[in-house]
């Protein structure tokens, strides 16, 4: 029994190639990859539009400056790379509600939106606490 559809590669192959990308990143650019700091910096940049003086004094934004850096471009690149692969391999699919969610919670888009939003907020708070 295999759950993999024909359009995807073996997760072992794609994973091992990703491992090589990670090695090259450390070797060539001296960067270990991560994503969640970008959400802190971006949140800081948004808050700066409304309360620049407050952001300047907040300890966490002094530690993680509200700027565009290597990781911001890395996170943007994930979007571009995935879009490119999906189009190239005819695997792009517009989807508002995931099938497994729909089966359990129904097809409502607002319902999915509310829970995905709250889930995202909780997940990021935890990720930052664990420094992941």
């Amino acid at each position, binding site marked *: 029994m295999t759950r993999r559809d024909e359009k995807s590669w073996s*997760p072992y192959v794609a994973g*091992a190639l990703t491992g090589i990308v990670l090695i090259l990143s450390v070797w060539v650019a001296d960067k270990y990859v991560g994503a969640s700091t970008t959400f802190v910096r971006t949140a800081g940049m948004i808050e700066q539009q409304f309360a620049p003086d407050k952001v300047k004094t907040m300890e966490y934004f002094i530690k993680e400056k509200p700027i565009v850096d290597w990781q911001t471009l890395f996170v943007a690149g994930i979007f571009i790379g995935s879009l490119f692969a999906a189009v190239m391999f005819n695997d792009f699919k517009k989807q508002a509600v995931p099938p*497994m969610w729909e089966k359990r919670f129904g097809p409502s888009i607002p319902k999915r939106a509310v829970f995905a939003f709250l889930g995202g907020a909780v997940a990021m708070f935890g990720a930052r606490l664990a420094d992941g």
Partner: protein
Amino acid sequence: MSPLLYGLITGIAFGFLLQRGGVLRYDRQIGALRLMDMTILKFMLSAILVAMVGVYLLKDMGIVKLNLKPTIIGAQILGGLIFGLGWGVLGYCPGTQMGALGEGRWDAVWGIMGMLLGAALYAEAYPIMKTTVLTWGVYGKITLPQVLGVNHWLVIVPLVFGGIGLFLWFEKKGL
């Protein structure tokens, strides 16, 4: 070449491979949490095992150095539990939801907005966390070989074989 350009190129390669591995979907992420579909574990562990061997080889040759995050038991256990609660509801990770959006799963937009809020809330909570949770069980920048007091390859080689054993078991079970 500028660091920003390196970031973009690395991100594109990473996003491409995440998409090709089929690991960006809610159904796969929740499938892993429900122990029904181990695709994500296969992908992640393959990447980790390859990168672990490669980075330590380069380190032994004096080409790269490790960049360790400090171990804070309290923050990592509590943070991990909170992250897991949110992840199990959203069904995307911080980085991978950008890729999910890239392949058309646009409910990732809600997750991205939620994560920006979560990051802003953590920034507000940081001064309190610093005097509480972030002081519980601080061990600094440590590694497994260091704690065990053994050569790093004595940890790496068993982990690689353990990973391969796990893969064989997944395939036998059809997970």
